[in-house]
């Protein structure tokens, strides 16, 4: 039985300018925050923007499409 697709972030109100990131192996929200904002401590903002698909900021899955505010 094939794996289910990872859940994807909401459409951000269908805003075509909303920015997204596809989770890769070894990623954490802190690493993503460092890459996009230069500050790993801003990871909670990414978590908040993706609460529709994330229940725990420490648990993200490869292939998930996260919205980057």
């Amino acid at each position: 039985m094939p794996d289910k697709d990872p859940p994807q972030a909401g459409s951000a109100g269908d805003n075509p300018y909303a920015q997204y990131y596809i989770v890769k192996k070894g990623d954490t929200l802190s690493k993503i925050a460092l890459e996009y904002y230069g500050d790993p401590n801003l990871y909670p903002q990414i978590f908040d923007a993706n609460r529709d698909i994330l229940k725990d900021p420490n648990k993200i899955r490869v292939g998930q499409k996260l919205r980057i505010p």
Partner: protein
Amino acid sequence: MQRKFLHTAAALAILLLFASACANYREPAQAAINEADTALQNIAADAQKYAPDQYRAVADQLESAKSTFAKGDYKAALAAARDLPGKVTELASTTTAAKDQAVAALKDEWNSLSGDIPQMVEAIQSRVDMLSKSRKLPKNIDQASFDAAKSGLESMKQDWTAATQASAAGNVEEAVARVKSAQQKGNEVLGLLKMQPPSPG
């Protein structure tokens, strides 16, 4: 002596006849020129913009009639000016049709662009707010780029406000010009912040 008097009298009579004939043309020529001049001035701004070639032809004919009139050739001036009012009416009609077409095209453009800008502003504002909270900028964005992005965003918002005001006032041309300016600035800011533009389609 008598013959000389008769010659002078005949010459005077001819001169009077000529002057009378000229006076017959002077008034209608002046009236036709004035009518065309006033009518052309009333539509000049739009006509120069929407039917420039036709406007130039009518304006040249009017200038020619005025010049001929100034030289005292009232008959020729009348001939030149007689059909000018009709040509000005035709020009007004062409101008109105061309303007209506241009305004309709601008409204389509406005409808297409105006929905885009608020979303662009929202996404950029969100990223600027996040970067403003950061202790350090990401590797691929330097301080100068971030400062330029922030001022670009403010300028974009001003353009958008001006665009919506112009649209509300019925000035679609200005509205489209300002919304295009906002869009261009938004694209520049997206680049400065290393944000991805929307995927086509």
